[in-house]
């Protein structure tokens, strides 16, 4: 993993299933901030993580340049809809497909 870090940008994938009004929120922000300077960052929200779709401060992640994906199944189950157009509807199947394309996977459950 990361053997080509000098040639191509390193890619970081976060998977977040914890609630946005919990302690992981600040940690995620800090890590996305420092890692987005070192490569590409994507965050996949699933489970209770889809509540990030409704927390206004989630925009900071977008402003840092991160790609924001969410599990449509989890969102539907929780009656959550994204009001923001910068969250992209996705699925755990898609997570499975993209995971091997990332150099580092960082999981907040």
């Amino acid at each position, binding site marked *: *993993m*990361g053997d080509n*870090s000098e040639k191509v940008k*390193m890619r*970081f994938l976060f998977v977040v299933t914890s609630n946005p009004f919990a*302690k*992981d929120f600040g*940690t995620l922000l*800090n*890590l996305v*901030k*420092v*890692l987005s*300077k*070192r*490569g590409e960052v994507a965050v996949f929200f699933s489970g209770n993580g889809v509540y990030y779709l409704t927390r206004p401060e989630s925009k900071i992640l977008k402003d840092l340049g991160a790609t924001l994906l969410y599990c449509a199944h989890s969102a539907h189950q929780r009656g959550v809809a994204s009001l923001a157009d910068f969250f992209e509807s996705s699925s755990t199947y898609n997570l499975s497909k993209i995971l091997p394309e990332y150099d*580092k*996977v*960082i*999981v*907040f*459950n």
Partner: protein
Amino acid sequence: MVNTLWLVRKLGDFSSDLVDEERDMVILIQDGVLRIPTKKGWFVCREDAQARGIKVSEHIAKSYEDIAQLIVEAKKVVVW
């Protein structure tokens, strides 16, 4: 090179026997910083300690910039 970089949020719950003392590194983050580690290879996130008003010796402190660099260099990251 670090094999596994462990970011530990809850120390009480952490299975520290899974750490490879030779090749891994442990960094306490979030409220994990309330317990100052004494083991070799164990560190504390500087900003997380500061935000909580906890003083940490410089030699065991790692900033988020340090952590980012370690994430780049380590084989993988485990958040506990």
